[in-house]
């Protein structure tokens, strides 16, 4: 398994720390928004946090703990056209998508859990062959993360080898300082290039301390992974999945879940093939044409979800399939609470 390095990381010596005054943030944002697409979080009229393309700076929020949906949409869109086709009497003419027209996007205000997810997604999409759609989109993003100065009871990044100020996947990381200004940590060539466009905004570090949220460690993920290899038939699965209603919410809001369905849609002689998000929690996900379904009941599907993230992925992709963002738990209508279940698995 080969992970081609997409981001040219600066060595520790070269990683630069600068500071950004509160007023400079707006100037930086507007500079970026004027020349390219910027994907930033806003609070909508019904109090949801959503990422939008090029919102006004005054609408961008810095106070969110998590957005409702993750930002995987920029590299793994909820609908992605794969190719177009036209059927004539003799043949099907395929028209490929020109991936070069995918625009550059700057991600703004992404928390460290979400930025760490990109690498995990790459371990899936570029596992044995390189997924061109995903890879092209990944090349085109610049990630400006915002480290977490707030957390809540659903967060558990520290239990999955991450932290509220982890720099994994970031090109530049902004952190709130005690005096209200921001620290900017520039981590990659891309980040450097961006800074060089507006160097006056980035001043010498002020020495102020970062405001970083505390996230309690809830479980030892290594112990969970090791325990999982021996509990496939354990009654734990049935007991703890009875209330699951099999909705796709957890998989769809998760920054790391990458299951998709492929569909063809035609209108007369023309059509297109596209892929769209799917979930292993759906009852028909593993239904065979013969009518046999190896995961017929919810406990088997719930087990699959946890096994995939905490046992199969560490084993095959060398990556933990979870970043501890807590979206699954906060979106779950029946409070399945993944962290609580993992804590129980640690002690099983």
């Amino acid at each position, binding site marked *: 398994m080969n992970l081609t390095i997409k981001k040219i990381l600066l060595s520790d010596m070269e990683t630069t720390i600068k500071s950004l005054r509160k007023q400079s943030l707006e100037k930086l944002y507007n500079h970026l928004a004027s020349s390219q697409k910027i994907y930033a979080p806003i609070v909508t009229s019904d109090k949801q946090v959503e990422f939008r*393309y090029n919102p006004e700076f005054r609408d961008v929020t810095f106070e969110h703990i998590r957005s409702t949906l993750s930002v995987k*949409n*920029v590299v793994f*869109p*909820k*609908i*992605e*056209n794969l190719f*177009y086709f036209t059927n004539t009497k003799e043949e099907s003419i395929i*028209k*490929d*998508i*020109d*991936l070069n*027209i*995918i625009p550059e996007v700057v991600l703004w205000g992404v928390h460290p859990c979400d930025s760490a997810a990109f690498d995990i997604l790459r371990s899936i999409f570029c596992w044995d062959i390189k997924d061109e759609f995903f890879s092209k989109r990944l090349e085109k993003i610049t990630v400006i993360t915002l480290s977490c100065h707030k957390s809540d009871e659903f967060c558990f990044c520290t239990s999955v080898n991450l932290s509220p100020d982890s720099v994994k996947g970031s090109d530049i990381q902004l952190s709130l300082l005690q005096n209200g200004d921001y620290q900017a940590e520039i981590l990659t060539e891309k980040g450097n290039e961006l800074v060089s466009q507006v160097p006056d905004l980035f001043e010498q570090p002020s020495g102020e301390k970062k405001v970083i949220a505390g996230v309690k460690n809830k479980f030892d993920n290594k112990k969970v992974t090791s325990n999982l290899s021996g509990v496939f038939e354990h009654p734990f699965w049935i007991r703890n999945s009875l209330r699951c209603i099999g909705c796709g919410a957890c998989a769809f809001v998760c920054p790391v879940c990458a299951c998709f369905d492929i569909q063809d849609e035609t*209108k007369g002689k023309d059509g297109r093939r596209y892929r769209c998000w799917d979930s292993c929690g759906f009852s028909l996900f593993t239904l065979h044409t013969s009518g046999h379904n190896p995961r017929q009941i919810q406990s088997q599907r719930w087990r699959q979800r946890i096994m995939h993230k905490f046992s199969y992925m560490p084993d095959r992709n060398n990556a933990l399939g979870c970043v501890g963002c807590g979206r699954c738990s906060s979106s779950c209508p029946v409070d399945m609470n993944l962290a609580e279940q993992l804590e129980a698995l640690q002690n099983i």
Partner: protein
Amino acid sequence: MSDFEPKVVAFVCNWCTYAGADLTGTSRIKYSSNVKIIRFPCTGRIDFMLLLKAFANGADGIIVSGCHPNDCHYTSGNFHAKRRWIIFRELMDFMGIDMKRITFSWVSAAEGAKWAEVVNNTVMRIRELGPYKSYRDMVNAKVEEEVRNE
């Protein structure tokens, strides 16, 4: 707007309205040619999604027509259809889909003149309302990340 020719799709039942439309023709009654007729065994067979698909595929107006109550070839198909339409119209209205663009009628096999009237009135009304652009714009709206190969 003056050269806008409405596209109207008519979902009709075979035994009454389709036969009635035949009679209109054999009686040499002239009526608007904007209508494309789709023949069903019965109005009870007409799925409500078909109407939405007609709008999505370019129809500006729709006519749904069948046998008069108590005259259904299959006894009760049109009664089921009536109930379905009552509820469907309320849902569509609630969602802001233009019900003025859909005409529902009972046209029997003997009512050749009525069919012509229904078609002409519908086409005239749609001509005034204009093309159903807002619906088609919604259908064609692309999700931000979709990349189109122009």
